[in-house]
């Protein structure tokens, strides 16, 4: 009993800090509708700033705290609001999740660059008042923890006073209620938003400083994950209610400490020793189950800025063949290491394909793609390789792939179930929580599981010994063990699945999932069971993720259990896929190439340049290299707010002139093919070939445009009535123009038979 009370006290201490962190999320979400995933990043950077001030530069504790919590963190919050988040109005739920993810990665990248760039030095955080503590029922309660409790109470009171007693606070609430009415009153919602982001960031910073002593030494991603633990509390408060958030935070804190108590600090059940880290994720699932059903949503905004065109099946087939041909030609020129980079890119693209289906077509979110890869690998391993290890098996069999796809589909269905009633954001959070649970309880498990089922002894190998070795396929008498052969296999697979996805999108099923994304309410009134369709899409995309995951694992050959399973890799892939153009199969390809480029190829090139030109080393390596390495991908993600349809769309727009000039295009393609022949023969060097290719991609469309005097009018603008006066001036007036004018002017159709049923 005494222990119980003591652990209760400690649980409440921890809960207080979670409450502070989660309240910050609630404050920003309720005024902006943005679930600020970057909260953890702000907390982390603030903790590092505090460390720098207090222990790096020996500023006194109160001053360091003041500078961190009252100056630095709020300024960072205001910066984020003004320059990034404000631009997210009228964008889809996906964009509003991706941009904060990008911000998180950017902030963490910047933190890593500033504090951990040169050495893995240990920044040791200290508690306030060191180890001073009081004894409560035999347990040491540190002053530091008591300060956390006091601050949580203080913040609750201060927030109440702010929100209910001051004009600024009332304005913040008024912004939530009715933004335009506030403006009609003369109030400035933007100021209120800035204030809420400043407060949210300040609370994040405080939580970061308070949580950091839990780590022996400060580490960027570990600290971010600590702050992530508080997110379920905010979800319990439906991202809006501060009191419920506090309650959720206390439940979180108590659960962790009670687990410590009954499990003897994790010593009792070895299999579950990581459960403590997964408790917040488990509670998130519980919170999702308890949340009341969302009202069936209509279209959120009249017109989101994201637009995706669907290629025809013929185009898809053509591009599929082109892709395979181009990769085949390129790899014949490439050195071994370059082929590996390209193969890595294609394997990541395969993984990203599942997101095209799920996010691009159906508008739902999966933040744990790599976890499905892990699940697929474990499933395939049980089936294919078994306890005797790789020695007995030299091929990844088709059966194993199919089996693991089924397993992924089932697992995906199970995760999606609690979130089906809720908006997409919650499904995203559920998948993220699932990723953490699997990581902590399954992937970090290095001992095999033994149990009996119906009298049969069963052994399941998880990441036994910390890694898996995944064989590559040996099909139709061909070994795909070699890198070049496997690259081609993956490319063909990508083309086939990509064509399959486009065929799916053009089928009745595809139209239904797009319709569901656009307006669930309208779908329901047409008789569509939305929950079932959503479940089906999620299962299908999980299966695709499983397939891509197996290929990704086979590409790596040896898959250690610390490879990309901790959640951040999935976030990055999701972000890059959206940036690439989530509505397009080519977007997935771009995403894979991008990730591979940024993580391996570009640093290599820059290092080589730095070595070749020592006087410019600072530019290539220190500035460009570091920037692209730490914050590059994130900066691209942040840019998404400006162009939500992604890179694939921009590229396609760039090539539009080619369609109008088929002869010139054919000449260009033939010229490139000829150049490839010359390079292959060794007449032209690889570098020159690459240079000419890249340059021509940029220049030829422009040249064609200039040569044929093509002009492209944005079709959407015509209907707005703005450019109507110009019709017929630049080129002869046509029948289609008359129709455009009729449409814009709302004139009745001409030459079309009257409605006669």
């Amino acid at each position: 009993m005494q222990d119980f009370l003591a652990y209760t006290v400690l649980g409440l201490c921890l809960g207080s800090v979670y409450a502070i962190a989660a309240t910050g999320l609630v404050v920003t979400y309720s005024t902006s509708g943005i679930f600020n995933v970057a909260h953890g990043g702000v907390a982390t950077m603030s903790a590092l700033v505090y460390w720098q001030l207090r222990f790096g530069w020996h500023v006194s504790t109160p001053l360091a705290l003041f500078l961190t919590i009252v100056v630095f963190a709020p300024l960072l919050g205001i910066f984020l609001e003004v320059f990034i988040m404000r631009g997210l109005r009228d964008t889809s739920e996906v964009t509003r999740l991706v941009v904060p993810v990008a911000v998180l990665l950017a902030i963490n990248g910047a933190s890593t660059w500033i504090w951990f760039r040169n050495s893995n030095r240990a920044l040791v955080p200290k508690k306030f008042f060191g180890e001073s503590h009081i004894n409560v029922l035999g347990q040491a309660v540190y002053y530091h923890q008591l300060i956390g409790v006091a601050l949580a109470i203080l913040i609750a009171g201060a927030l109440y006073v702010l929100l209910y007693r001051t004009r600024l606070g009332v304005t913040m609430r008024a912004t939530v209620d009715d933004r335009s009415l506030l403006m009609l009153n003369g109030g400035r919602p933007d100021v209120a938003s800035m204030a809420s982001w400043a407060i949210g960031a300040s609370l994040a910073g405080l939580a970061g400083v308070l949580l950091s002593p839990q780590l022996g030494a400060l580490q960027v991603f570990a600290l971010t994950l600590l702050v992530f633990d508080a997110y379920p509390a905010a979800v319990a408060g439906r991202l809006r209610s501060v009191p419920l958030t506090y309650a959720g935070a206390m439940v979180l804190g108590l659960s962790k400490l009670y687990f410590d108590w009954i499990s003897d600090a994790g010593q009792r059940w070895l299999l579950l020793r990581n459960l403590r880290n997964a408790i917040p994720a488990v509670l998130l699932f519980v919170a999702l189950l308890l949340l009341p059903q969302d009202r069936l949503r209509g279209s959120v905004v009249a017109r989101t800025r994201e637009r995706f065109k669907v290629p025809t099946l013929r185009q898809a087939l053509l591009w599929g063949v082109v892709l395979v041909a181009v990769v085949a030609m390129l790899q014949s020129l490439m050195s071994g290491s370059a082929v590996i980079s390209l193969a890595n890119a294609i394997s990541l693209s395969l993984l990203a394909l599942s997101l095209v289906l799920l996010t691009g077509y159906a508008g739902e979110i999966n933040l744990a793609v790599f976890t499905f890869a892990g699940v697929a690998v474990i499933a395939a391993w049980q089936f294919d390789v078994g306890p005797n290890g790789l020695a007995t098996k030299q091929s990844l069999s088709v059966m194993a792939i199919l089996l693991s796809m089924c397993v992924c589909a089932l697992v995906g269905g199970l995760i999606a179930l609690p979130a089906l009633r809720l908006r997409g954001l919650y499904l995203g959070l559920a998948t993220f929580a699932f990723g953490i649970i699997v990581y902590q309880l399954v992937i970090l498990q290095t001992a095999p599981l033994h149990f009996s089922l119906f009298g049969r002894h069963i052994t399941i190998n998880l990441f036994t010994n910390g890694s898996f070795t995944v064989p590559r396929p040996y099909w139709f008498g061909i070994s795909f063990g070699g890198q070049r052969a496997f690259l081609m296999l993956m490319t063909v697979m990508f083309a086939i699945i990509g064509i399959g996805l486009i065929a799916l999108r053009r089928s009745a099923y595809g139209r239904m999932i797009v319709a569901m994304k656009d307006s669930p309410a309208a779908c329901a009134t047409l008789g569509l069971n939305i929950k079932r369709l959503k479940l089906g899409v999620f299962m299908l995309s999980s299966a695709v993720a499983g397939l891509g995951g197996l290929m990704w694992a086979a590409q790596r050959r040896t898959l250690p259990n610390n490879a990309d399973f901790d959640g951040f890799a999935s976030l990055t892939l999701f972000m890059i896929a959206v940036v690439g153009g989530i509505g397009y199969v080519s977007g997935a390809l771009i995403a894979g190439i991008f990730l591979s480029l940024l993580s391996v190829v570009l640093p290599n090139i820059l290092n080589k340049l730095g070595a070749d030109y020592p006087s410019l080393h600072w530019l290539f390596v220190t500035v460009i290299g570091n920037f692209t390495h730490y914050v590059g991908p994130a900066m691209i993600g942040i840019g998404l707010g400006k162009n939500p349809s992604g890179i694939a769309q921009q590229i396609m727009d760039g090539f539009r002139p080619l369609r109008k000039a088929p002869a010139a295009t054919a000449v260009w393609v033939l010229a490139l093919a000829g150049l490839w022949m010359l390079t292959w023969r060794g007449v032209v060097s690889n570098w020159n070939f690459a240079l000419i290719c890249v340059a021509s991609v940029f220049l030829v469309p422009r040249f064609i445009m200039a040569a044929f005097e093509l002009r492209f009018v944005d079709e959407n603008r015509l209907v707005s009535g703005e450019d109507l006066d110009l019709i017929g001036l630049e080129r002869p007036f046509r029948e289609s123009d008359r129709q455009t004018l009729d449409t814009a002017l709302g004139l009745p159709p001409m030459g079309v038979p009257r409605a006669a049923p």
Partner: protein
Amino acid sequence: MKFGGAAALSDVNVTAEAGAITGLIGPNGAGKTTLFNCITGLLQPTSGVVFLEGKEVSSLPPYKRARGGVARTFQRLELFTSLTVRDNIRVAGEIRNRWSRTRVDPRAEADIVIEMLGLTRLADRDVSEIPTGMARRVEMGRALMTRPKILLLDEPASGQDEQETEEFGDLLLNLCGDGTAILLVEHDVSLVMKVCSFIQVLDFGRVIASGTPGEIQSNPAVLEAYLGEDNRA
């Protein structure tokens, strides 16, 4: 079809009969859209019941009511903005194929509906590019694809010009000739007067008058509700 009582409504009883157009008019905020949401199941009424062909459907989710034959359009457009006009209508038929025992060819059916609604010229455009009046016809076409027993139209004529509204009225009369019940909420009173066989006037969430178009036009209470009481005295 009966209906009674909701938050913005009190003790409303509305009945729509097969093969007839029932008009539902009343000033803004009288609770007409709320009524539609209750009938289709997008909102749960605090009390009261909805009957479809004599069977109570009050506890059914929206999609089951739709399968029972209720279809609607939305005052605030709910089009599938990623799809073309044709695909908006076609997908409704494809959804129907998932639940209906009788299968249709959605593409052919959609072409018929598009022709009928005078949307042929716009069929391959994105729905976000067409004028509101035409967009309302797309919603109506979508609803028709489910072959509803009752069709709820929420201000279908707003955004259509005079001539289009005229055609639209003829279209509605043809439809109900096939036995469909139509419940029409509309501000264009001349359209309502022209096509409805029975009109109910809603005000402050209750029915203040009902009758044939002729009766409604000569009912002083209606004029009052619509134009407000005479304040010039």
